[in-house]
Structure formats: structure tokens, C-alpha cells
């Protein structure tokens, strides 16, 4: 949560430049003033694009590429949570459930054996549907379910809402165990290699992107990574546009001061339910992407809860109510977890890798607390403050 909560009513307190209306002269930001800065940022973005679009998928081993894909979808779920928690101020610790819902819908549609047992009938949800075709379905399903859960959430605020969403994360695995009949009758829906192979048209792309020497199954990791990269790019652009739209300003106004927002004519219910639905759809799509890496959809109580926490951590570490913060947070969380799990020194210390792995949540938890002490507005928020202090000028924050 940003510091703007203290300057109620937030709508009027914000600088006009944030709206981005053409008539209002924007305060000259660093980019508009300094050609050296412009060149630097141009070079940096070209290098970044080269790294993410070409270098990562073409040079790293499949397991490493999968790790990048994982960072992308964790970041995507955190981005969705940001719409709800960062911009709208509704804390959820149950987004693992929407993530799982997305994963299950995708896996059930792609697999020809798994089905849902409901009301005495078996619902197959499609056989062998291509991955990309499941995405619109996931988006719609999660929008609807998110809205349905958003309605009761209208009456519940703050810490109580966190509690209700916690229930969501705890309930979801039980629901899958009851209704989903996957591999061997369990709630795990496993997919075969052939199901996850890239489609034929993936081969049409130039060699640089789709290496023709790779057979289809071998190119799975690159295909998954590119799908994630494109989807994340589009959805980040959407957040960027939302944050500057009328709806985005309404989200922030409701967060900062509900009563004041209502008096200026904002429909509280519509805004809050839409935020819930949108953020559920983001988390669901992230779940769909996870199927490409995990090759299965599965839900256990512990895992769903841990995922929900991980999204929240990524959001807070990166920076709430910023566009790129949650994505940066997603990368940090995933790579940090991977790094701790590989520490040889910890293994030596405890004489076993299993016991050393147990320590990673502890380091995670303590790191989180320390982070809240020193950088409560996340990495993006903190560096913005640092930048402002260096330049001693007012830049134009989104929030």
C-alpha cells in the first residue's frame, strides 16, 4: 500500500499529470529533458529486448528457460493481484485458488482422459483442445468466478477480506479432490508430452525463434517461454492503460477514500467487483501458463496457500500500484527461491539437502519482514523515492 492512503481524499490530492490528459502540461520528467537519459533508456530497452526475446530461450538449458517462464507467470499473477490489492486496496491471500482454477480449466480441456464429476454426470470439458484456444475460456471462467466472489467481498473490508480469501485458498483443493477425476482418479491432471508440443505453425517462424533442428517435443520449453512472454507483454500493456484510464483512477480513489469516491459519483460496487474479476482473470491466465511448465494441474492445501503467499510477496517486494513492480517481484521471488535451494553451504551446515531446503521459507519470511521495515513501498517505489531525492525534482508517479 502506498503512502497516498494518508493524504485523503486521494482523488484531489494527486498531481494532474498522472491522468495523462493532453491538455494538462506534464511536469517534465527525466526522459523529456535530458538527451543522455533518452539514449541510455533506449540502449537499455534494446539490450533488455535482446536478452529476453533471443538470449534466454536460445542459450539457456530447458530447465533454466522453464525457470524464466515460471518467473513470468508468477509475476503475471502478482500483476493481477496488484489490480485488486495495489490499486484498489482489497487484500487477498487466496489468489492461488484462481491460479489453480485457470490451470485446471486448461488441463481439463487439453487432456482427453480427465473429466469433472458433477451432479451425477461426467463433464469432459473437451479433448485435445490446443493450448492457446483454452486461454479465452480461462479468462471468461475466471472473470465470472471472480465477479461472483467479488460480490460478497463488497461487504467485507480490510483484514476480514483477507480472511475470507484465505478460505478460498483452503477450500479450492478440497473442491478439486471432490469433483475432478484426473490421472488415476486423483485430482492431479497430468498431460502427455504430445499434448504440450508446439502447434505446427510455430515452425513457420524464422530459424532465430523456432530452431527447425529441434523436434517438437524438444522445443516445448521455448514454445512455453514465448507464449508466456507475449501474453505477459500484452497484459502488462493492459495494466499500463488501465492505470491511466478513468477506471484506473476510480480504483485508486476507492482505495484512498471510499466515502469521498462515492460522493464524486463513483459506483463503488461496480468498481470493486470489476477489480476482483479482472485480477482473478490475470491469476487464472497465469495458472494456464503454469500447465506448460509443470505439465500438470494439481492442487494441495499447502501448495495453494504457498502460491497465494508467493503472489502477495512478489507484489509487495516489487512495489504495489506500479506497472512493472509485481513482474520484477515475480522474478526476484522465483530466482531467490531457486538460489536458496541450491546453496551448497546450507546443505553442508545441516548435513542434508532436505533439511537445508526447509530453511528457505524462514529466510523468505525474515527477508519479507526486513523488507517491510526499510522498503514498505517495494523496489520500484523505493527507487522512485531515491531518484526523486537525487534529482530533487517532483517526477510524476502513477499513484
Amino acid at each position: 500500500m502506498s503512502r497516498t492512503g494518508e493524504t485523503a481524499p486521494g482523488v484531489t490530492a494527486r498531481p494532474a499529470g498522472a491522468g495523462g490528459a493532453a491538455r494538462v502540461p506534464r511536469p517534465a520528467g527525466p526522459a523529456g529533458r535530458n538527451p543522455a537519459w533518452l539514449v541510455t533508456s533506449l540502449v537499455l530497452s534494446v539490450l533488455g529486448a535482446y536478452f529476453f526475446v533471443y538470449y534466454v530461450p536460445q542459450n539457456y538449458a530447458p530447465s533454466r528457460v522453464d525457470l524464466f517462464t515460471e518467473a513470468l507467470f508468477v509475476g503475471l499473477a502478482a500483476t493481477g493481484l496488484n489490480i485488486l490489492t495495489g490499486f484498489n486496496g482489497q487484500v487477498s491471500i487466496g489468489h492461488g485458488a484462481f491460479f489453480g482454477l485457470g490451470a485446471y480449466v486448461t488441463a481439463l480441456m487439453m487432456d482427453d482422459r480427465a473429466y469433472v464429476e458433477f451432479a451425477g454426470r461426467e463433464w469432459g470439458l473437451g479433448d485435445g483442445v490446443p493450448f492457446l484456444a483454452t486461454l479465452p475460456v480461462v479468462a471468461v471462467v475466471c472473470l465470472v468466478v471472480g465477479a461472483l466472489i467479488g460480490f460478497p467481498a463488497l461487504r467485507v473490508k480490510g483484514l476480514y477480506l483477507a480472511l475470507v480469501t484465505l478460505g478460498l485458498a483452503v477450500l479450492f483443493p478440497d473442491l478439486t479432490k471432490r469433483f475432478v477425476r484426473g490421472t488415476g482418479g486423483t485430482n492431479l491432471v497430468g498431460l502427455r508430452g504430445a499434448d504440450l508440443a508446439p502447434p505446427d505453425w510455430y515452425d513457420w517462424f524464422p530459424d532465430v525463434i523456432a530452431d527447425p533442428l529441434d523436434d517438437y517435443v524438444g522445443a516445448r520449453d521455448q514454445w512455453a517461454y514465448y507464449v508466456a512472454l507475449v501474453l505477459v507483454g500484452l497484459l502488462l500493456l493492459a495494466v499500463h492503460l488501465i492505470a491511466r484510464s478513468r477506471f484506473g483512477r476510480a480504483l485508486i480513489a476507492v482505495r484512498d477514500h471510499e466515502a469521498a469516491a462515492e460522493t464524486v459519483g463513483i459506483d463503488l460496487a461496480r468498481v470493486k467487483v470489476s477489480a476482483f474479476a479482472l485480477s482473478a482473470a490475470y491469476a487464472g491466465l497465469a495458472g494456464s501458463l503454469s500447465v506448460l511448465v509443470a505439465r500438470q494441474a494439481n492442487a494441495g492445501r499447502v501448495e495453494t496457500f504457498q502460491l497465494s503467499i508467493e503472489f502477495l510477496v512478489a507484489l509487495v517486494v516489487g512495489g504495489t500500484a506500479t506497472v512493472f513492480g509485481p513482474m520484477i517481484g515475480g522474478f526476484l521471488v522465483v530466482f531467490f527461491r531457486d538460489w536458496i535451494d541450491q546453496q551448497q553451504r546450507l546443505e553442508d551446515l545441516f548435513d542434508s539437502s532436505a533439511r537445508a531446503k526447509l530453511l528457505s521459507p524462514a529466510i523468505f519470511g525474515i527477508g519479507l519482514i526486513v523488507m517491510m521495515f526499510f522498503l514498505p513501498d517495494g523496489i520500484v517505489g523505493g527507487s522512485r523515492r531515491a531518484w526523486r531525492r537525487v534529482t530533487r525534482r517532483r517526477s510524476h508517479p502513477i499513484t
Partner: protein
Amino acid sequence: MDLFVSQLMNGIERGVIYASLALALVLIFKTTGILNFAQGEMALFSTYVTWWLTEQGLAVWLAIVTSVVLSFLGGAAIERVVMRPVEQSSPLVIVIVTIGLFLAFNSLAQVVFGVEAEVIPRAYPNERWDVAGVNLKMDTVVLVGILALECVLLWLLLQRTKVGLALRAVASNPESSRLAGVSVGSMLMLGWGLAAALGALAGSLVVPITTALNPASMQEILVFAFAAAALGGFDSPLGAVVGGLVVGVANALTIQYVDALDGIELLVPFGLILAVLLFRPAGLFGKVHVERV
């Protein structure tokens, strides 16, 4: 009918278990105004301490008392070191910090004490009586007794002593309390210490009844305890007890009688929470707060 009564007793036993942890949640909410998501894991850690002390050859009762005292000190220390710097922050920051504590305590318990399931001996003989056809367990009697005692002591402390008044004043308005000469910091530490001590007592008594002690022991209990506290109202100790009993009994009866909810009995407590929050957001016994705009 017999089946119904035995399920009812079963539900009451579970309900008392939930209520004992819910009481700790309520205490921390009533004295500091936050929901402590780490309460279950703090209780878990304390329970491990109890187990470790019994392993060192201490008598069970003595081990529990020692663990409760240590937990009181530990809880107060956590407030001073971890919570104090973020006291004034938004709910999100506080949620994140308690979740950080949750992760830290759970994994530290595993690293320090190991992942194997451990058995804690009961502190009292494990007896059963047949009272008018109803199977009455010593476990239930002891837990009900302890819970009743806790409630009375808490009520006396909060409503009948000067310290209790200060505790309540700090929760409702820290600024004015400070002006009135209340030491806000020590009251917050006291609140956390008491809650941690209650959690330690609950964990040490409950774990021998339900399962062997393992790192996941408290998680399901915590969920039900939250349900109980939300149902009864987060600022009412009596509400926590009634909420715990309602949740426990409803759950036991659902398992026995409602086949449609087989495997998803958790829908019942959460349905109850949702219903209560929708129609009476402050909980059954909670006080309604009026917000000034």
C-alpha cells in the same frame, strides 16, 4: 439418536480445540487491533518447546508451564522487535509481516526440531466415562475446564483491572491513551505476550489429542479458529468460544449427515463466516464500530 449424541460430543470436543486458539486470536485483536496470521505457527513452535522439555525429562505439567512462560516472553519480544516498527502502517504491510512470521516460525520449527512426527504425552490420565449413555472423554472435560478458566480470567483482567482498561484503551485509541499517560508500548507487548502464552497452552493441550506433533499440526486448527473468531466477533472472548463450538458441531454433523458435502466439509465454516460477515459484519457478539468521515 446415539449416533447423533456421539457426533455432538465429537463436535464439542473439536469446537473447544478451535475455541482455545481463537481466544488467542481475539486477545491479540482486542489489545492491538490486528489479525495475527502467525498465531497458529507461534503456538506450533511453543508446542515443540513443550515436547523438547518433556524429552529432557521434565514432567509434562512443568514443561507446559515453562513453555507458556517462555512463550509469553517470546510474544512480547516479537511485538517489540518485529511489530513495533510497522505499527502505524497499512493493513497490507501488517498482513505481510505476520505472514513473514508465519513462514519463519513454520520452517524454523522444522529446522530446529526436525520433520518427524513426535508424540507429546498427555498431562492427565486418558479416561472415559459413561454418563447416561453418553461417552464422555477426559480430554473434553479438561479442555472445557481450562477454556472456562481462561475466559473468566481474561474477563476479569480486561474488565475489572486497571491494566485491562489500559489494554482496551490502547486498542481503541493509542493516541489518546498515550496522552492519558498509558504506556502504549508495554501494553502492546503485554497483549502479544498473553496471546502467545494462550497459544502455547492451547497447542500443548490440543496436539496430544488430535495428532502427533508435526509441522502441519496447527494449520487446519488455525483456519477453523479464524472461522470461530470471525463468527463470534474478533473483539469478544465469549464470541470466540461460542463461535468455536458452533463451527466444531456444525462440522461434525456435516461429516455425519450431509453426503453432498463429502470431502468439502470446510464449506460449512466458510459459509457461516460469509453469512455472518454479510449480515452482521462485526460478528455475533462483536461491537459495531461507527466510522466518522
